[in-house]
């Protein structure tokens, strides 16, 4: 119990502190690194809550996927070439008191929440979770029975997001379909699949910049 409390205090204090870092750090790369710290410490809080699977997924998806995507975009955009301005918005005088009020309100409600009503307790107490073989197996039991349809919908959402991201981030001036069609037409006159082989017609590279 003592080590749980020590872990909780360390993880929560550092997570909130690094969250403040995301808020005020001037360099976006530093803000992204602070976000990685927040993510790792929230993953630690998931471990304190007894759900190691969520912690692993948090680290893999957030730190391994999302923040890398942020850093990738930051490198791509080359922020140093852009005009730099002040970091904080000029509505700071209004936004900061509103944020403080929101924080005080949320903390007040959270800290004053009554104890958990035992009528609301689910079936997954510690004994039942151990019976399933761990929290991962218990989560799978819920995810693939009760939430099977939302799970499949989530996969469709990810596919749509991936396709949408590719289509949105594509360079419009490249226009990949048209050179491909021209190459195919050139290939069909000489024989199928010629244009992709090593013995491609010599006019194929010359044609690409024209179209």
């Amino acid at each position, binding site marked *: 119990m003592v080590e749980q409390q020590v872990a909780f205090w360390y993880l929560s204090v550092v997570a909130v502190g690094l969250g403040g870092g995301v808020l005020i750090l001037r360099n*976006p790369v530093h803000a992204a690194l602070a976000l990685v710290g*927040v993510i790792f410490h929230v993953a630690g809080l998931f471990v304190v809550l007894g759900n190691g699977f969520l912690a692993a997924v948090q680290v893999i*998806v957030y730190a391994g996927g999302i923040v890398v995507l*942020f850093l990738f975009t930051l490198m791509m955009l080359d922020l140093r070439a*852009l005009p730099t301005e002040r970091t904080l918005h000029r509505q700071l005088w209004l936004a900061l008191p509103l*944020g403080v009020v929101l924080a005080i309100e949320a903390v007040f409600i959270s*800290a004053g929440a009554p104890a958990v009503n035992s009528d609301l307790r689910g079936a997954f107490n510690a004994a039942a979770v151990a019976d399933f073989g761990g929290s991962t197996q218990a989560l799978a039991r819920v995810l693939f029975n009760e939430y099977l349809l939302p799970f499949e919908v989530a996969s469709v959402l990810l596919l749509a*997001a991936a396709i949408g991201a590719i289509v949105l*981030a594509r360079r419009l001036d490249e226009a990949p379909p048209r050179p491909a069609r021209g190459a195919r037409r050139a290939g069909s006159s000489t024989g199928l699949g010629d244009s992709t082989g090593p013995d491609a017609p010599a006019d194929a590279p010359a044609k690409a910049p024209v179209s």
Partner: protein
Amino acid sequence: MSLNAFLVVGALLFSLGAAGVLIRRNLIVLLMCIELMLNGANLTLAAFGAYLDDMRGAALVVFALTVAAAEVAVGLAILVALSRVYPVVNVDELDQLRG
């Protein structure tokens, strides 16, 4: 540890993210602050799930993670497409719809 302690941390993370969305100017940092808000919400969901002996909290965290990943992918793709038209990341200068 009581449930309330976890809820307070989640609330603080959410408030920091909300304040960041209001006071930062950089579009990428704005998306990061949205991630911070989602992290706070995830922590609250996981804490409720753990203290109510209910795995549905953890299942909702998995779905929130999925939506966060999709949101970041599309948001950053829009940002990359936008930066070709307007080479700025300041949200105040992005104030017209026509390209």
